[in-house]
């Protein structure tokens, strides 16, 4: 055998030994390479090296710590998810109100006034504001806040994604007051008697546009949950990650 043939044989052997290590050879091929290994110590040694390498790589997977939890909310239908989000938002608003009334205000008189202010704030919305669900787009509701700017009470919801995406939703009865500061993109719309504004921080325009469409649809009464779900998933996969 000349050098070129030797080299070709070596390459063939290397492929076969790898396939043997991976359990990919047919019985006849296994017998053939086993016979060659019995006659060639170098080949047998190569097989031992590759088997040990494979075992060590597999060890990485076996020892991999995993603290992930399956997000159970994702298996719910969009309508169920929306209901959960709204309930959570309402519970949060109530919890904030209760905490302020019970612990944060030193004087009873001031507590009563604050309670009235919250009651006025909530009652000031002619219809119940919608806090859209963007979970399918990877944006999770972080909290809901009630503010009292000059133009009247305002509900503010904050969403965050895993890679720095952030959204802020503002809802106000009638027309929205002055524009909120900051944000790389913003969009305003009206749904019935409420005005909505969505601000994005560091989110690509294409993704924001899809989320805006889904948000607008969710704030309408005749929304189609399946269509919204599709739209949000599209927003998640069709655009690059956030940079903010």
């Amino acid at each position, binding site marked *: 055998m000349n050098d070129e043939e030797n080299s070709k044989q070596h390459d063939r052997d290397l492929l076969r030994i790898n396939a043997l290590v991976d359990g990919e050879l047919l019985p006849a091929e296994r017998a053939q390479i086993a016979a060659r290994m019995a006659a060639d110590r170098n080949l047998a*040694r190569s097989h031992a090296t590759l088997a040990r390498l494979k075992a060590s790589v597999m060890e990485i997977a076996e020892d991999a710590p995993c603290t992930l939890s399956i997000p159970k909310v994702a298996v719910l239908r969009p309508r169920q998810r929306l209901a959960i989000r709204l309930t959570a938002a309402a519970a949060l608003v109530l919890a904030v109100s209760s905490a302020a009334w019970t612990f944060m205000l030193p004087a009873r008189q001031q507590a009563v006034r604050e309670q009235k202010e919250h009651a006025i704030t909530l009652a000031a919305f002619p219809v119940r504001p919608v806090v859209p669900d963007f979970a399918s787009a990877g944006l999770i509701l972080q909290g809901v806040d009630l503010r009292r700017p000059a133009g009247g009470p305002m509900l503010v919801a904050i969403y965050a994604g895993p890679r720095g995406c952030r959204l802020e939703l503002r809802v106000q009865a009638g027309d929205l007051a002055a524009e909120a500061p900051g944000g790389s993109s913003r969009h305003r719309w009206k749904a019935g008697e409420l005005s909505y504004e969505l601000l994005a921080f560091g989110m690509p325009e294409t993704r924001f546009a899809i989320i805006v469409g889904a948000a607008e649809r969710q704030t309408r009464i005749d929304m189609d949950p399946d269509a919204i779900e599709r739209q949000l998933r599209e927003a998640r996969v069709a655009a690059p990650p956030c940079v903010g």
Partner: protein
Amino acid sequence: MATDRHGNLTALLPRLVAFARTILGDADFARDLVQEAATRALAAQRVPDDPPAYRAWMFRIVRNAAVDELRRNRNFVSVDEILPDLWRFDDACIAKITVEQGLTSLAPAHREIIALIDIAGFSYSEAAECLDVPVGTIMSRIARARQLLLGAIEASTVRPLQSNQSRR
């Protein structure tokens, strides 16, 4: 029910994370990516019914997400590829720590094929289907990737402790 269809997901998660980590070379990022992939999978309308197909489907989702991520962040610095003589290789150098270190210095394509075969546990035909290449290409790719990994281990200054070796 949606939850029944994903009954195997919890058991797959550690391997999915290790798979993503091998391709990306970043443990934290791999966890984020798998978390996202799991969320996407749970929201999917069509989910494979039988466990092997489900497993292949999940790894494909993670693999595609990882490859997309690598394309977006082309910060890999290639190092000289060394192909050692297999029969002269010192097997005592092969340990989990040196393999992990060696993997980080491989090109993404080589890390990917090792992750598919050794961590995801794909057969050559499953890997060929996943990468859309012939089985013969998988055979040559895995052989070359392993040789390069051994070269990287040999070139590295990291050596496993003797006490670890004696336990093997």
